């Protein structure tokens, strides 16, 4: 827990580049565990493997706050919780304790805030947002955000990003091969008589 905090602080301080930030992101999983986990994700149905139903309910609500549905799909529509559940059973196993403790803390805060029996997930969205804002700088939130976004945008083979809907959401076409023009500015450039020179 303490070590994780150090990592997160280092992360915040040393984020000069995408690479720099990726550098400090998460524990490197064992390669073989990740591969096995991908196979499991492909084979299994949607049942939870690590989280309890109650934990998953809380965490799914957190994920939905991080990436909410609007006129486009959110974390729930993308199946992010299934990604997270499998991640916590394999390459992200080292995060499980922090995630579990964070869920428990969040539920305790929700009870204090007068949540019904179903807990955090049953609170109005405004109240949920306020409780999550309170813990924005916690290790739990850092990991929950990381896993939510990996689940929304990593390859669908890992159990999230259902049908590639996360990719469509941000405009990533996933066609595997493209032809020029690639974007607006090179299209305009090559269409004008003075452009196009020098390939």
């Amino acid at each position, binding site marked *: 827990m303490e070590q994780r905090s150090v990592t997160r602080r280092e992360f915040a301080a040393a984020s000069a580049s995408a690479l720099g930030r990726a550098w400090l992101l998460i524990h*490197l999983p064992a*390669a073989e565990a990740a591969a096995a986990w991908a196979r499991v994700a492909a084979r299994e149905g949607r049942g939870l493997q690590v989280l309890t139903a109650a934990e998953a309910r809380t965490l799914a609500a957190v994920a939905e706050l991080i990436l909410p549905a609007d006129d486009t799909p959110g974390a729930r529509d993308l199946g992010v919780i299934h990604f997270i559940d499998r991640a916590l059973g394999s390459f992200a196993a080292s995060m499980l304790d922090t995630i579990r403790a964070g869920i428990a803390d969040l539920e305790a805060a929700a009870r204090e805030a007068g949540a019904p029996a179903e807990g955090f997930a049953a609170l109005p969205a405004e109240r949920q947002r306020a409780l999550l804002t309170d813990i924005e700088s916690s290790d739990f939130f850092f990991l929950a*955000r990381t896993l939510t976004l990996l689940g929304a945008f990593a390859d669908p083979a890992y159990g999230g990003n259902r049908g590639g809907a996360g990719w469509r959401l941000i405009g990533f076409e996933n066609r595997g091969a493209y032809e020029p023009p690639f974007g607006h500015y090179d299209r305009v450039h090559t269409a004008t008589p003075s452009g196009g020179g020098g390939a």
Partner: protein
Amino acid sequence: MRRRTVRYPTQSEVDFVIVGSGAAGGVLAKELAAAGFQIVVLEQGPYRKHSEFRHDELESWYTAEILGSSRDHPQTFRRTEQQEARLREGGLPPLLFARCVGGSTVLFTGNYWRFHEIDFNERSRLGPIAGTGFADWPITYAELEPYYTRVEWEIGVSGAPGPFDPPRSRPYPLPPLPVKSSGVLLEQGARRLGWKPFPAPMAILSQPYRGRPACIHCGFCMLYGCEAGAKSSTLATMIPRAEATGRCEVRAECTAYRIETDARGRARRVLYWDADGREQAQRARAVILAANGAETPRLLLLSESSLFPQGLANSSGKVGKYLMFNGQAYAYGLFEHPLNEYKSVQVTRVLHDFYDADPARGFYGGGGIDARFTYGPAMFALFGLPLDSPQWGPEFKRNLREYYTRTVEINAHTTSLPLESNSISLDPNVKDRWGRPAIRVTYKDHPDDIATMRFLQDRGRELLEAAGARRIWTVPVSESLGGAHLLGTCRMGDDPRESVVDRYHRAHDVPNLFICDGSSFVTSGRGQPTMTIQALAFRAAKHIAAFAARGEI
């Protein structure tokens, strides 16, 4: 499908054992095998096929299998020699290099500009810099030029001459890759500022070349293997040609751990663990180390003996010293229309207007600038937005949708001064999976390196402004966390007291040991070192073959 290749018994003496199959090792293997010598290449990583490479962001960035797990291959890091080096709790290791046949050329971006003349003689031009090992190379650009040309034509480099290029004896074999929106914007912004942009030289095929297909513009270059085989890695170029000679055996998943010498101090055998973890020893007339700027010095230090108490080839004490990474600085811009930078190769236009050092700036340094985008969808969601934008919730999501296709990154690549205190050494406490001392990295950027990064980050901001970015942001320049350019750790020089290898890459202390990879660099250049590593390898191969033919090894 792998072609059947020659197999040598370990107890029979081959001409050369080459440790490492990457940028330099692949070239040396092919050149020396083609010259008629018997070659065994030892590569610690697996032999992958192009068809195995996938567009799996999670695997490439976060499981980082090819980069090696921190459990099997731990590296420790510290800023100064006074500190105790530590393992990082999370994330990638300090030094990024690929463990596979082809080495880091399999995963690289493929930026392939040549070094300029000043990269080799800057010390004479500018004078000394106190407290550093700033020095001239023992060779000049003119001496290396024919070999730069060989690299371009042998592996396939796409490009067109630029306004600051040093002289070249032959045009590029392939035209530049199609310009992307980032390249168009860089060009427009730069012209408005009076700068002179030019097409990026890339080790990626713009057209079919020597039996390989052209780039399919999939966009997965950096940290991905190329499934098309259009990236000019040694896996796609030199290694198959070396094997096709019938004289080169590539032994994958074989980890060299010691170079054994005889009573006269000549290299005799390379000891290694094979794919099944068994100890093996390959006899050879000569040994060539091309294992990269970290593994090469580690292997030398691990090969200490009564004859070589400081480590093999280390009477100078310079093995592992003068580590240089190249600095990097970034500026980001948001544009009105989609650029779709996730498509195609990463870089299509570059700037060398600030390549030369300028004493008027008050600090030493210079660099190249390009426009690119290094994000897959997950990476961008995690890190791509400006830090002052919301990082979760409805606005975060709206921003992701707006920014992903409209963001470009201006990336500056800069000089790193050679400092004796920046080094690769053996960690006294941490061991790797084989029980060997882990690589210990000591690295702190020189103040001029930081100043150069800041200077070029400011140029990046100007460039984005001139290109019409709607929004521009930067993250403060910080000290290097590590690097993928592993340079300078067995530096080349004429003086055996100050350098590890001579101008022909022969170890000063061991006549039949040659060292050629990023470790040979005397100064860092301005990023993009692989082209120069390969030019050095072609040149080294020619001299080594001549020495061998004359019985001078």
